[in-house]
């Protein structure tokens, strides 16, 4: 081995490292007037809305994403001593107590918190501010039921009816937050007898898959271009308007429908991270997330509903979706305490 050669290689490697470091800045610099929002992979906000915040407050927002909602929260908990940013968006009511018990948020009561729909204000200690909500509901393929002249299901109980044998697909609550929300809904509705319900669903030919993508795009017959064969799926109240919004050309009716007696409500929160560098700016960002400008942006960016009462919805939402009048709910404390036990029991009843 030649020493000259090894030196050359070392020089090349160092040069590479420097080159990579030089490449590393676009959008990544954290100047003094840059605020960092940590969030999960599904967070979205339109550029003009974010620009308005910068214009009004002088703060640029750098958005850091990591994994799905569960992984993102766990990363926030792991980095509590040295937080990745100033605010964290994306903890929902199924995970809220985990965040609160780990003390990752500092208290902040936004002045316009009173404009938020009261039922969504699930944290009386004012550490987590509700920004949006979504309903996990049964969706059906309208075409299927029309062509077979079968009346579509309406309630959770209907799904166990032999009339709908082998027609339902759901997500595994151990690997999917959608599946977990639906499971929580059945616990809320059936109480202690929720496992009986799942036994009946299993006997009626329930199909379980790992995640929403596979359930909806793969197995559900109502999804655009799908080769799926099951006309009943666990999805969201916003899925029918999304089918319309993302179709070309825009249809006049939605190909799918959401059953509003089967919904579990998920609420998403934002909070100031404990140890944040720019606390005042984080407060401003949270205030901004409750303004009409941000709230109006929420439906078409993330396909969820705004948390502030009276925020006007886009037409595709008002025409093709409805907000469930009486969704199933459980307190975050109850979910926090029992979720692991529910998942274990569910696994025993449905998969083993």
């Amino acid at each position, binding site marked *: *081995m*030649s*020493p*000259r*050669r*090894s*030196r050359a*290689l*070392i020089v090349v*490697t160092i040069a*590479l490292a420097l*080159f*990579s470091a030089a*490449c*590393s800045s676009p*959008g*990544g610099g954290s100047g003094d007037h840059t605020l960092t929002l*940590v969030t999960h*992979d*599904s967070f*979205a906000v339109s550029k003009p809305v974010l620009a308005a915040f910068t214009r009004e407050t002088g703060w640029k927002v750098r*958005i*850091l*994403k*990591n*994994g*799905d909602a569960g*992984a993102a929260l*766990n*990363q926030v908990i*792991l*980095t509590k*001593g*040295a937080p*990745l940013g100033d605010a964290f968006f994306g903890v929902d009511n199924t995970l809220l107590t*985990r965040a609160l018990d780990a003390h990752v948020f500092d208290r902040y009561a936004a002045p316009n918190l009173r404009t938020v729909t009261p039922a969504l204000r699930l944290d009386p200690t004012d550490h987590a501010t509700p920004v949006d909500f979504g309903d996990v509901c049964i969706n059906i393929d309208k075409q299927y039921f029309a062509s077979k002249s079968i009346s579509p299901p309406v309630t959770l109980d209907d799904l166990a009816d032999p009339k709908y044998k082998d027609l339902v697909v759901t997500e595994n609550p*151990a*690997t999917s937050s959608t599946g977990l929300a639906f499971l929580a809904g059945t616990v809320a509705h059936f109480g202690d007898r929720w496992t009986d319900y799942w036994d009946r669903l299993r006997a009626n030919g329930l199909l*379980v*898959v*790992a*995640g*929403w*993508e596979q359930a909806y*795009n793969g197995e559900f017959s109502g*999804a*655009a*271009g799908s*080769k799926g064969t099951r006309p009943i799926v666990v999805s969201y109240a916003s899925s029918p308007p*999304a*089918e319309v*919004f*993302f*179709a*070309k050309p825009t249809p006049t009716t939605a190909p799918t429908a959401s059953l509003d007696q089967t919904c579990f409500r998920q609420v998403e929160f934002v909070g100031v991270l404990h140890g944040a560098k720019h606390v005042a700016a984080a407060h401003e960002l949270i205030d901004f997330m409750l303004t009409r400008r941000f709230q109006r942006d929420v439906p078409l*960016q*993330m*396909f969820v509903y705004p948390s502030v009462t009276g925020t006007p919805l886009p037409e595709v939402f008002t025409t093709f979706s409805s907000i469930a009048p009486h969704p199933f709910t459980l307190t975050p404390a109850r979910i926090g305490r029992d979720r*692991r036990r529910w998942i274990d029991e569910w696994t025993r009843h449905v*998969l083993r």
Partner: protein
Amino acid sequence: MTTRRAIARFALAVVPLAFVAVFFLWPVAAILARGLGSQGTFDTHAFGRVFDDPALLQVMRFTVWQATLSTLLTLAVGLPATAVLSRARFRGRLGIRALLVTPFVLPTIAVATAFQSLGVERSLGAILLAHCFFNVAVIVRVVGTAWDAVDPRAEEAARVLGAGPLRVAWNVTLPALRAAIATAASIVFLFSFTSFGVILVLGGPRFATIETEIYRYTAELLDLRTAAVLSVLQLVAVVAAMTAAGFASRRAGGLRPLGHRPRPAPPNARTRALATVALLPALALVVTPVVELVRHAFARGAEGFTHLTTTPVGLPDSPAHAIVTSLRIAVVATLLAVGLGLMLATAVTRGRSRLARFTELLVVLPLGVSAVTVGFGFLIVFDRPPLDLRTAWIIVPIAHALIALPFVVRTAVPILRAVDPHVRDAAALLGASPARVWFEIDRRAVTRAAGVAAAFAFAISLGEFGATLFIVRPETTTVPVMIYRLLGRPGATNVDLAMALTVVLMALTATAAFVGDLGGHRRRAVI
């Protein structure tokens, strides 16, 4: 001179090893320590609890079982194909080699769609087929590069002396390739052992492996203790598998590979038929789902391809921007992996064998550790200056380079070994300086190794999804993450775009593999 050589070799090995230590060993050790150590004491009860849990024991048994079956199936499909692709010369050979690599970058969820429309139901069979689909390329590449370097004249001599083709294969070819086959098989075993998406999506919810459980305990339940125990067990299994592979390859005797070879005789009808039969299973397995995916992408008339430059609603970038981001990350990751990998391969081929074995083992470890473990480890160790890298852009290519490094080392080592040391000694004896020796003799082998390894590293980076997802990163999205996001929403345009991006990803990978092979082959013709 000898001490200078030793120092040089040490320097060559130390940079890549430091890289692995800082960006892999340290974070993983930190997260395992966080899980296992409560206030400085090592919690041994945690292991007992895992071994008392019948469900987790079943998970462990299944993990080993499916990985073993997957490896055997992949060898059965891959080896005959490798034989044809290495020994026969025919038009389209490089094209097929490039095609076989494309599965590497395909998102599992997209592959699941293709399998589903081909009628493959969720089952153990689907898991095995999918592992075979993804990993045939490993056999073809790793064994293929070694095969290319084996002098066919020994086989010809055996044949002239009256040995039948089977006997030649068994007594002459196989021993020469045993090391490469053991290596390739161990990589396939590792990939199947630690496979995540395939198990969940193609296996269905009834199947779980150690890897899927580590993910669940870390990302979903934040039970770092159980996750740490499972990670340690997985590491032990990985080290055991690699050691066994190392043992198998050490016992390998066989031919000394040569760098040159005569042109093979033109094929006759019988060898042609044989080649077709040998190639068919691999082709059928890889081509059918790939064709299905392409067909799906064009099902609604290339609609998805016309929107590559507009930013979809609710996503941070346009698909074109994501392609540029992915390419940029892949270039940096490839440079890192190839640079570090070649340094290490050089050190390994010149070094003492014990050091070499240790190094090769160390470099493979990143494949045996869950992406979520490494990602969470990054978070807790790089949290203060000068190494507050948690949110730096470079962390993504670094993670990709870690994953690509074992492939680079394993592809490069046989090629570098193929250089006859006597030639080098002779040159030195005749008065050539070490640099001149390197330039005249090693350079071509190194360039060839770099070409083949770079294509592999590039493909790995382009398709990498798991680690990218669990590393905190600015909004810039890579193509696989964008595909995942698009498939996470209802609606025709999202699916169309996701399928179009999948095809783009495959095309980029196949091109990279083709160019890498082409560069490699043109160069080897000169030797």
